[in-house]
């Protein structure tokens, strides 16, 4: 298969050349290099909108092990699961031998050069002897080092930490969202220019021992790309190694690079942000050049570019070199990973195949149908809910229910995007109070504005360098009762402001208001959205009496990662406004009339409702019940009771996964301010099943599967399939790879231990005293102290459709094909004639 430079990269390089034909070739090359480097960095969302991101997002055009090779050659990390974990798999005999044999065959398909017939016995013998082979030395796999690493290694110094912290300090001040009362004066400048200003003043690195650091700043050009060129020349890096050296520089500060990459992700200021990434690279280089000078390194480039790198030249980032071959240790580890994936796949498919439920149950009209998010946490709840009564059916759909909205809270001037980060919200929905007058809304809004200003003023009194002393002496004692109630979970440490200024009655009536003037959604547009939802769901006939859109949200206190537990399909927020908007649209008689014209007849006696499933407590809250007509009240009551019972059962199941937790204890976690594991989030996720729920009905999938409903017979053109494979499937793969990487190498891709986290700039996490910005999940989110709650497995996607239909989507969407064929996920198709696996070379192979 092709591992060459992908067409997109190549063309962007030529683009630059065409556009700037007059410049000399050196500049052109550097620009192309920089734009390729940018693509390798995956974005990091700020904490308020934290969503899972595939840390290898820019690398899916490479095969998994090629990407690994590139990453380990520029940074101390390892995308393969740690030896300890893999060794424990071997020790436990968790995987039968036949799965190893099958896995070897798949390895052979993927990497024919590295897993040949001759090695087969040798590798399998390692498995039998439960030995992973000798691990390489600390820097053995590195092709490129930074000067700081080199000096630290040779002279037992701590320059990496000093330099990272200094850059971290600068970036934190530059991007601060309100932590510092006295902000940096250069926030308006590009990152690099601001650095030149700051570094020209700061005595820190000079006095720590990098003499001449401040002096260097005076010599540097103010454009980051020109600065990079002169800095590379100062280091004496030959042009063919620029790419590798620059990548190792950027990766040494990868957390901040990711945060800067986020700013150019969906925004209009893409150029400025892209320039900041180049700026960050220049900043990192200034430190290394200064260090090299002050350490009197002669010809530093020679030491930075290690022997192994020679085979990577000339274009590390573009192509993978065939001369590279992974060590035995790496191959055994890959084989074990692969075998654990094969093992999981076999067991899961066995479970599904065992089922012989016929589909005629569908023809009876269900009493209640509840639509849940595809999230793995829904699986547990859905299973228990379905067990309550046969009259209730559930289905899975992306939790924003097809409505990409920006939700503006009452009294706020802008809102949060409640949709997957891959798309931008198309409608703005204001929060309102049902049946409230305009005057009342305006009153609440202005009350909230006043309240916020009052809080701010009070905060200034609390913290100002002159008044903080009197504040403490007069009011500090008041924290004694606060400490008590917070410790007992009676009060949240900081109250949630979303219910400010409302009467108890109004709190119940608060919700998205589609009829607000600012939303200005025509009936036509509403019908369009409604139709999209129903077609996506395949819900075109046989409507239940009550259809509930059930979004989800988490509930916890004192946890900066809360957004990560909320609905990822809603951009790290609650699915509530989306569910309520969807229900409101479909209850609108005008919309229903238009839908009727388009061939979707929603019967009079069908009512749509919205609810939210709290993933922390498994409680379901229904909304807008006061508007439910009398005829539906009984059915809604039943649905509520079933949800209550299902919640109890789901809690009981989940408490088994929590150490020292009873079912009640689990409820308490939602208000415990000392809780580092309020719930397991999406830990354990391993598969994405696209198909008919009746085929998995009643099977205990252990909360490890994303479930999306799909009925190929209703989708002859394959449009719905295309939508599923390009959106939810990509998102689940992002989530899966984030958990995968955080479990596989928490130091490299996770965010370390939560107990020493420090929130920086109100947007990010630092671990301990500083260092780089943290990107992934904390150790506590994937491990319970005795074992991994998330076993690192790459996602298994099972689709119930024909091979042709799936293949045609793959052909059309290069990115999706790369995910499936380069080993970032494994794709399985279940059709009438059997179950088929997509191979690395793009063929289908039947699974027994």
């Amino acid at each position, binding site marked *: 298969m092709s591992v060459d430079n992908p067409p997109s990269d190549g063309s962007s390089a030529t683009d630059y050349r065409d556009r700037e034909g007059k410049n000399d070739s050196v500049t052109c090359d550097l620009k192309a290099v920089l734009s390729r480097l940018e693509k390798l960095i995956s974005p990091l969302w700020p904490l308020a909108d934290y969503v899972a991101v595939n840390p290898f997002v820019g690398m899916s055009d490479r095969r998994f092990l090629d990407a690994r090779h590139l990453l380990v050659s520029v940074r101390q990390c390892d995308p393969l699961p740690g030896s300890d974990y893999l060794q424990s798999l071997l020790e436990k005999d968790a995987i039968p031998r036949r799965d190893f044999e099958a896995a070897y065959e798949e390895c052979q398909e993927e990497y024919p050069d590295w897993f040949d017939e001759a090695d087969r016995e040798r590798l399998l013998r390692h498995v039998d002897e439960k030995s992973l082979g000798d691990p390489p030395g600390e820097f053995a796999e590195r092709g490129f080092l930074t000067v700081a690493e080199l000096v630290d290694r040779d002279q037992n110094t701590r320059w990496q930490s000093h330099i990272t912290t200094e850059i971290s300090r600068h970036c934190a001040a530059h991007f601060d969202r309100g932590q510092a*009362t006295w902000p940096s004066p250069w926030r308006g400048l590009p990152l690099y220019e601001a650095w030149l200003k700051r570094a020209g003043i700061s005595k820190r690195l000079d006095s720590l021992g990098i003499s001449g650091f401040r002096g260097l700043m005076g010599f540097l050009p103010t454009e980051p790309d020109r600065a990079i060129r002169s800095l590379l020349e100062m280091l004496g890096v030959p042009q063919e190694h620029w790419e590798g050296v620059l990548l190792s520089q950027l990766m040494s500060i990868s957390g901040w690079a990711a945060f800067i990459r986020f700013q150019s992700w969906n925004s209009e200021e893409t150029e400025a942000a892209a320039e900041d990434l180049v700026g960050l690279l220049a900043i990192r280089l200034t430190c290394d050049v200064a260090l090299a000078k002050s350490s009197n390194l002669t010809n530093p480039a020679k030491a930075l570019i290690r022997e192994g790198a020679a085979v990577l030249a000339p274009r590390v980032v573009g192509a993978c070199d065939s001369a590279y071959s992974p060590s035995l240790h790496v191959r055994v580890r890959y084989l074990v990973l692969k075998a654990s994936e094969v093992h999981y796949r076999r067991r899961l498919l066995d479970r599904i195949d065992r089922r012989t439920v016929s589909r005629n149950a569908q023809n009876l009209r269900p009493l209640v149908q509840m639509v849940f998010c595809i999230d793995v946490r829904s699986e547990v709840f859905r299973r228990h809910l379905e067990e309550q009564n046969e009259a209730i059916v559930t289905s899975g759909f992306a939790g924003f229910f097809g409505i990409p909205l920006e939700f503006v809270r009452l009294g706020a001037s802008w809102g949060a995007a409640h949709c997957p980060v891959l798309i931008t919200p198309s409608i703005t929905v204001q929060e309102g109070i049902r049946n409230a007058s305009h005057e009342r809304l305006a009153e609440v809004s202005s009350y909230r504005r*006043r309240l916020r200003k009052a809080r701010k003023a009070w905060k200034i009194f609390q*913290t*100002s360098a002159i008044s*903080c002393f009197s504040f403490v*002496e007069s009011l*500090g004692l008041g924290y004694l009762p606060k400490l008590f109630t917070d410790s007992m979970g009676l009060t949240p440490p900081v109250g949630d402001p979303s219910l400010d200024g409302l009467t108890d009655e109004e709190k119940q009536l608060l919700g998205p208001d589609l009829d607000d003037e600012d939303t200005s959604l025509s009936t036509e547009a509403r019908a369009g959205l409604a139709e999209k939802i129903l077609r996506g769901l395949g819900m075109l006939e046989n409507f239940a009496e009550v259809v509930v859109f059930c979004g989800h949200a988490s509930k916890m206190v004192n946890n900066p990662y809360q957004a990560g537990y909320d609905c990822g399909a809603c951009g790290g927020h609650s699915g509530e406004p989306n569910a309520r908007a969807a229900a409101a649209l479909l209850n609108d008689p005008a919309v229903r009339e238009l839908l009727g014209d388009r061939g979707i007849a929603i019967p009079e006696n069908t009512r749509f409702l919205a609810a939210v499933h709290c993933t922390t407590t498994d409680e379901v809250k229904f909304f807008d019940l006061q508007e439910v007509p009398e005829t539906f009240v009984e059915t809604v009551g039943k649905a509520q009771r079933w949800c209550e019972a299902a919640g109890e059962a789901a809690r009981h199941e989940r408490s088994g996964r929590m150490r020292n937790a009873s079912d009640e204890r689990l409820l308490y976690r939602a208000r415990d301010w*000392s809780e580092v594991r309020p719930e397991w989030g999406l830990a354990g996720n391993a598969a994405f099943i696209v198909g008919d729920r009746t085929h998995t009905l009643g099977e205990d999938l252990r909360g490890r599967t994303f479930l999306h409903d799909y009925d190929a017979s209703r989708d002859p053109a394959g449009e719905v399939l295309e939508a599923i494979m390009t959106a939810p499937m990509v998102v689940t793969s992002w989530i899966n790879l984030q958990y995968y990487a955080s479990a596989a190498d928490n130091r490299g891709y996770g965010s370390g231990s939560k107990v020493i986290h420090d929130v920086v700039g109100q947007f990010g996490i630092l671990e301990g005293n500083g260092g780089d910005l943290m990107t992934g999940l904390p150790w506590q989110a994937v491990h319970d102290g005795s074992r991994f709650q998330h076993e690192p497995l790459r996602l298994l996607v099972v689709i119930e459709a024909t091979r042709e239909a799936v293949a045609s989507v793959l052909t059309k969407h290069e990115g999706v094909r790369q995910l499936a064929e380069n080993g970032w996920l494994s794709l399985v198709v279940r059709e009438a004639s059997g179950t088929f696996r997509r191979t690395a070379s793009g063929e289908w192979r039947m699974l027994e």
Partner: protein
Amino acid sequence: MDLIISLVALAVPVLLLTAGLTPSAWADRHVPFMRGLASVVTLVSFICALAAAVMLVGTGAVDVRYAAVPGAPVLNFGVYFDSLAATMLLLITCIGIFIVRFSMRYLDGDGHQGQFLRWILFTLGSVLLLVVSRNLLQFTLAWIVTDFGLHQLLTHHAHRPWALWTARKRSLIAGLGDVLLVVALFASYMTFGSLDYTVVFEAAVAMQGTSLGKTALVGMIASLFVIAAMTKSAQFPFHSWLPDTMEAPTPVSALMHAGIINAGGFLVIRLSPMVVLSDAALGFLAINGALTALLGGVVMFTQTSVKRSLAFSTIAQMGFMMLQCGLGSFSAALLHIVAHSLYKAHAFLSSGSILTLAARMPPSQSRSFSWKASLGMSFLSTILAVAILSASLFLFGLRLDEKPGGWVLGLVLAMALSRLMSTAMETGYLRLSILGIGAAAGVAVLYLSLFEVMDTLLKETVSHQPVADSPFDITVSAVAMASFFLMFILTHFTQGFSHFWWMHRFYVHANNGFYLDIPLRRITARIYGQRAAVS
């Protein structure tokens, strides 16, 4: 009765220390047991502290000697328990309960949770042993033991070089403090012929105002104690390790900032009869405290992470507390210790809520008023502040010149009230402005009532030597007042000055903590044989 009170008070540290002696390896293997033990022990110790405090009411200080080394009566062991010790005992046991409870879930699954709880109990016990000590020797030993316990907690993540180096940096400072204490101990013995508080204090009180109290040796003793206290309470220039302790789990920060860092203040208040003998030592403490308060405050302004901001805030608060000590206002200092501990413990434990906190405020710092308009508001609110303060002083029948350090503390309070009202006015809402004035009046009344309570509480226990009569003391007060006034001006007009180049330079230096951490990094590197500064 005295014996019973002393035994109940002693039970507190003894219980905690005994539980804290559980071997680490065993503790890690029996985490559920350790959790139960820690909960029970902290709760029981709080109840004991409460009982001892209640029994103390109306008795006056209790001083009981249990045993002594035969032939050397100076080496004895016992309990000295008065309202000061009782207050600290209650405060620290109370915070201990919250910290232990917080650590249950917070460190769940940590592998070394048993050990962690063990060292928390140990550290709590040793700091409380210090609180109830009856002589200087006991005090010094307890202090050394506390440092040891804290070192274990700071190196909980022993695999992180950063944690290790921070703990080492702190140990050096703490070790310096211990050496000073030991020297002071010998000097005290030579001067007073005893190490027992009661004997020493009596002698010291007798010396007050006589030429005996003005000897160089007495001055040296006071200075040694003062400097030792500064090393323990993160006073400039010994403060730089504190912001680097974020390598320790959050409950350790809470314990340290609420229960241990104020031990320096406790030292000065406890030994106040000796310390007040030297005007120079007190003046130095006051000026250095004011400097530390301003330094911490300015640096805190520029910090971008929650915990670091909190750390610099503690430095500032401890500076202010030391200023109060230096001015002789020991009651105010104790009030500060108690209130700050509770506030800071909560601030650390709730530091994960920062995003919710931010959501409760307006998204941007919008200033709707011109420079001149805010000047007018500041002026108006300053006048109002002075009026409110005068009225409340009148209400309480207090006079600033009657209380040690009264003028300085009064000025700081007035400036704080002014700040409160001017920020309320700057919101642009009349209603909030009026509310602000009401709040300022409330704060003033609350402040003075609490001060009165503390003053009554400490009437018997600390020295009430009036300080502000010599020209030297007036100078000290003047310098402190001037520096706070300068700070007042600066905080009011940061915005107005922000475009000046010197403010930019000042910003960068402040953001770097004025590089005051670097010497300690270098010294530590030198001592541990590293080639370059440690992190």
